[in-house]
């Protein structure tokens, strides 16, 4: 399939909206921003298969924001729902009950709780079966819909309502974020990428590129969450920008398992700028600076980027 759009400049982004306004998501929702941009690339012939999460209430009886279709499944089995729909569409088309023009792209919509935790087995199964579907994980690094509890996507040292920064747990969350990208990559899906709403062209290019692949097309969308991360909603793009520029959120893709970074910051910004912008990390700075925790965060970033920065230097 030829690439229809190169997405070299902002003005190539579609003017058409596929998710209409009026939903009950929080103002400044980074996940919705990412989904809106992705949907512009995917077009209207889609069916979302939703796992319980913040986006469950995008569609709320008697209202739907979508120009396409939707099925709410459960928290743990949206990829299995995608399997049922994909298979059924194929069967109906194969026996002529449905014309090929009626076909739909099947897209799982799941938050990090569903993706990293409760639905991981179901996702693994769908990728293993090489199901022809899209997976859009809006990763706001906590169980946002239930009021911001820790998920295995919550980064080290973030405060959530179940990982409070307290006397015995001064850092808040004590465990590092699970590496879902690598877990998915171990299945060798044809296309896998991370995206950020603050990088709309990178995002659009990745969704456009993925169209060429049959099989699982998986996306983890960095989704700044003003409500859960404690910053003003207007700061969503800035938080997202800092995440990428500090090296905390790597923009990358893996085609049949082969990883490539689609953006490497020329020089990593100090991660403290990112941390200080969000209430969920405030305890790292007040009442005292938690030097050990800050060092741990810095070291994890350095360790992640070391091979790539070295490669770049070698290339020079």
């Amino acid at each position, binding site marked *: 399939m030829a690439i229809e759009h190169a997405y070299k400049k902002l003005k190539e982004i579609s003017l058409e909206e596929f998710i209409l306004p009026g939903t009950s998501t929080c103002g400044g929702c980074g996940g919705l921003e990412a989904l809106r941009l992705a949907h512009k690339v995917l077009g209207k012939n889609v069916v979302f298969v939703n796992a319980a999460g913040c986006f469950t209430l995008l569609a709320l009886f008697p209202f739907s924001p*979508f120009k396409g*279709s*939707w*099925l709410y*499944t459960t928290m743990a089995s949206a990829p299995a729902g995608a*399997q049922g729909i994909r*298979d059924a*569409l194929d*069967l109906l088309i194969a026996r002529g009950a449905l014309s090929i023009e009626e076909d739909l792209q099947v897209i799982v919509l799941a938050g990090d709780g569903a993706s990293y935790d409760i639905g991981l087995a179901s996702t693994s199964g769908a990728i293993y079966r090489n199901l022809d579907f899209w997976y859009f994980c809006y990763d706001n690094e906590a169980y946002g819909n239930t009021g911001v509890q820790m998920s295995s996507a919550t980064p080290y040292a973030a405060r959530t309502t179940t990982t409070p920064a307290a006397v015995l747990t001064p850092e808040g969350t004590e465990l590092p974020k699970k590496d879902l990208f690598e877990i998915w990559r171990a299945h060798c899906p044809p296309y896998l990428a991370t995206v950020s709403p603050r990088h709309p062209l990178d995002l659009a290019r990745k969704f456009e590129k993925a169209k060429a692949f049959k099989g699982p097309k998986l996306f983890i969308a960095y989704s700044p969450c003003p409500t859960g991360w404690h910053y003003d909603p207007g700061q969503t793009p800035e938080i997202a920008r800092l995440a990428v520029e500090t090296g905390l959120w790597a923009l990358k893709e893996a085609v049949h398992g082969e990883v490539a970074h689609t953006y490497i910051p020329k020089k990593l910004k100090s991660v403290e700028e990112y941390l200080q912008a969000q209430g969920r990390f405030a305890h790292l700075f007040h009442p005292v600076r938690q030097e050990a925790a800050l060092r741990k965060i810095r070291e994890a970033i350095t360790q992640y980027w070391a091979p790539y920065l070295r490669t770049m230097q070698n290339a020079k």
Partner: protein
Amino acid sequence: MGPQREEMLTGNMAAAWGARLARAEYVPAYPITPQTEIVETLAQWFADGTMQGKFVTMDSEHSMLTAAGAAAATGVRVFTATSSQGLLYAFEVLYTVAGWRVPLVLVNVSRALASPITLEPDHNDVLAARDAGFLQIHCETCQEVLDSILMAYKIAEDPRVLLPVIVNLDGYYLSFTREPVAIPSAEEAAAFLPPYEPHHAFFKASRPLAQGIAVLGGFIYSYFRYQEQLAARNALAVHDEVAAEFARRFGRSYGPVEAYRLEDAEYALVMSNAFATKGKAAVDLFRQRGERVGLLRLRLLRPFPHEAVQAALRGKRAVAVLDQNLSVGQGGITYQEVAAALYHEPSRPLLLSCIGGLGGKEISAGEFEEVLELMKEAAATGQVPGPQLLYTEGEQTQMAHLLDIAGKEWG
């Protein structure tokens, strides 16, 4: 009546034949004993082209039932099967797909629930699902399994119903037991069960539909739940229509309940599933010595056929519900339902509750004798004892021996 050949089939094979004759187009599967033979057979039939469509092994029963429901919500005829722990693992999905109002058929091969984990049947698994919005048909014979699956699709797909159905058979006692089963011809089955063409649930580009959508507000939620209830109650009449047509075409007749030698009976047993056969044998023995005893077999558990139960038990002196299940802390589950059905009868029989056959435990002739004695005593005294846990002396002796071997002497 069309040609029907008879073959020796296990209950599992009869279930597979039911799916095949129903032309189930999509079968998501997951293995669990004692159901596995069903999906193995279907896998083979899809693989060799005997059945058209797709068989897919999923990663759990939870995923399996989700895929089944989603495919049905897209518009294909779906069959799937599970058992015991598998049914419970898929539990939330039962409610979910029933709420989508999709008419798939799920065969459950009953097996008692852990802990302790075991292999033989009782009905705690399927009865746990009784409030989920699935209709339930419980089978006594392998023939009934095949026939009920065909009937189940026709009931489920009726626009007056549009609810999924569980067809239940007992593990081991039916699942692995062969007996002669008449297999309708594919043509006759197709004439009985036309293709599924939904008008309320589909996914297609030209008609976007958001399904299974969230609601907030009790009055909205209640509306849809009431619709499930009304649909399920409609299924009583639809079942009878479908059963009548089935009898016309295939010569076998099924009611929501089966009355066995009940007409002039003073005492009645109430049972379900394969052990009803043992109950019928006990009834025959009682009859031989002149005792007026009959048996009522519950077949359609959801919707519950209150009127049929009332009519069948009217005028009896005492009735014993023999539950092969245990609602811990309460007693027998179907006892409660039968009691509710009889409560407003002007001269209702005394109603006794007995628990037996848990984990496939034998219900021996002696136990049936005891149940009859209990009914007679109750009839004589007007006193009804609490739930009776049936257990024999021999079993108790054996169990004591096992406890000794297990080193439990400190107890």
